[in-house]
């Protein structure tokens, strides 16, 4: 295939992926009344500051967007950090210890691979409500930690490490925890960072679970709240502010993925395969 044809095809594809974001950006610069009339202009307007300010400080029938962004950030960071800690500890236990019943422990953790959150959402909801965790950050984060992908990734990473490491550590008199802290943890840094990027995006973009478990507007995540702003999609909505909010909602994970592209691709491929 000719290079110019490949270039043309790729340009069209890249544009089609970007186009809806560009139009949302355009919407965020224009007065909501004009958009609501169905007469949005093809050129940027002068309402960016007003729309952005309105979204950030007032929201649109929701909590202010700064608060929503904070909720999403805490949730995503909590899911990433929590899963990393759980996975590091359990992978360490599974790889470096001779214990009875290890097979059962591994099978129990491994089982969670079978069920995405969406499948067990209704029964999990009952359990979380009974525990009094609805409408809390703990209720948002904890159920999403029940997954095996991080454990599998780190288990594989630890298995691939040379055995001389642990032999040398033991000769030096290091116990398991010293080995974990001083040798294993520093070596795991890149794998952990790669996993962290993937988990942050996963946490930020959660939808069904936050939609169910949160009933107080000030605890909403930004992804759920932007959909609530649109409601039934009536023309009277404050479209300029909503599009400003939508852009703010999509930027953090997109920036993380683009800024850490190498790390992200590596983490994604080893976490999911």
């Amino acid at each position, binding site marked *: 295939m000719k290079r110019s044809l490949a270039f043309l095809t790729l340009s069209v594809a890249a544009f089609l992926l970007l186009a809806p974001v560009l139009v949302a950006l355009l919407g965020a610069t224009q007065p909501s009344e004009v958009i609501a009339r169905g*007469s949005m202009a093809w050129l940027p307007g002068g309402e960016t500051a007003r729309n952005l300010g309105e979204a950030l400080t007032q929201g649109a029938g929701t909590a202010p967007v700064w608060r929503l962004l904070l909720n999403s950030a805490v949730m995503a960071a909590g899911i990433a950090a929590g899963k990393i800690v759980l996975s590091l500890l359990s992978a360490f236990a599974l790889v470096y210890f001779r214990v009875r019943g290890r097979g059962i422990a591994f099978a129990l953790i491994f089982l969670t691979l079978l069920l995405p959150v969406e499948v067990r959402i209704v029964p999990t909801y009952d*359990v979380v409500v009974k525990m009094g965790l609805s409408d809390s950050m703990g209720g948002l984060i904890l159920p999403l930690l029940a997954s095996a992908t991080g454990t599998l990734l780190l288990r594989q990473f630890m298995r691939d490490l040379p055995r001389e490491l642990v032999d040398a550590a033991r000769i030096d008199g290091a116990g398991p925890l010293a080995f974990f802290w001083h040798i294993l943890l520093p070596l795991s840094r890149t794998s952990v960072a790669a996993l962290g990027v993937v988990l942050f995006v996963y946490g930020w973009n959660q939808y069904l679970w936050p939609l169910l478990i949160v009933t107080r507007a000030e605890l909403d995540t930004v992804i759920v709240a932007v959909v609530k702003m649109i409601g039934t999609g009536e023309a009277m909505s404050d479209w300029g502010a909503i599009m400003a909010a939508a852009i703010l909602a999509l930027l953090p994970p997109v920036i993380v993925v683009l800024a850490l592209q190498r790390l992200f691709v590596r983490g994604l491929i080893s976490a999911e395969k």
Partner: protein
Amino acid sequence: MSREAAAREPFGEAVLPWLLLAPQLAVTGIFFLWPAAWAFWQSFHISDAFGTSLIFVGLENYVLLAEDPLYRDAVVRSFVFASLVAGFALGVGVGLALLVENGARRKRVWQALLTWPYALAPATAGVLWLFLLHPSVGLIGTALVRADTGWDWRINGTQAFLLVVGIAAWKQVAYNFIFAFAALLALPRSLIEAAEMDGAGKARIAWSIQLPLIAPTLFFLIVVNLVYAFFDSFGLIHALTRGGPANATETLVYRAFVDGHVNHDLGRSAAQSVVLLVVVAALTLLQFRAMGRRP
């Protein structure tokens, strides 16, 4: 063998490993095993008239599901939806990966331009396209209405279904691109150079060498795309159509959400959770087969 095992598992402490495993096992038990067992149990019961106790009804919830034409429609619709989304997203994603690998300079720039939608939530993808295509607000939507095309997915079920398929696939192209591109990059250059020296064109190389060699990745992607279409599409459907108009975009997960959380029909929704569980388990077993075959 025993020496290797001893080296791999050097620590003999009996309690410590269980302490290390405890947090993950606790989370798994409380938020995974318990709810799953509870759903299984509930699926054989119904609530009594006061909602205070459960009455054992055997397989009745499942029989009712199987006899419900709305549910049967949702089953068929989900599989049609998932096949369309998976086919489209995989075809386009792999095609773009081949183009970047074989025909483009500045591969890193293209990679960034085609990767970023991975980070977009399906629900947000729905919001962006809604703004573009809304019949009375959107740039393209209002133009379509003015051109007398009868464009309004809010009352036209076919339009709504195709719209949801299109956006779900649009969002998933990036995922397929990322994996296909990584698999292509990992192929040995020498194979392709040898084929070039034999005079094979790029299209021939793609079809006869590259695609067969990344077949395990492609198979893995088919399964992941199906799981995505079944489950992750919920946010998109909720943002855009709420399953409507007249159930035209209602998938199995959406149906379970409606029965469990809108209608509070616990036995019925538990039975649906179990059905979904079987679907995912089957897909995951397929995926393990793909993993086993991957080089």
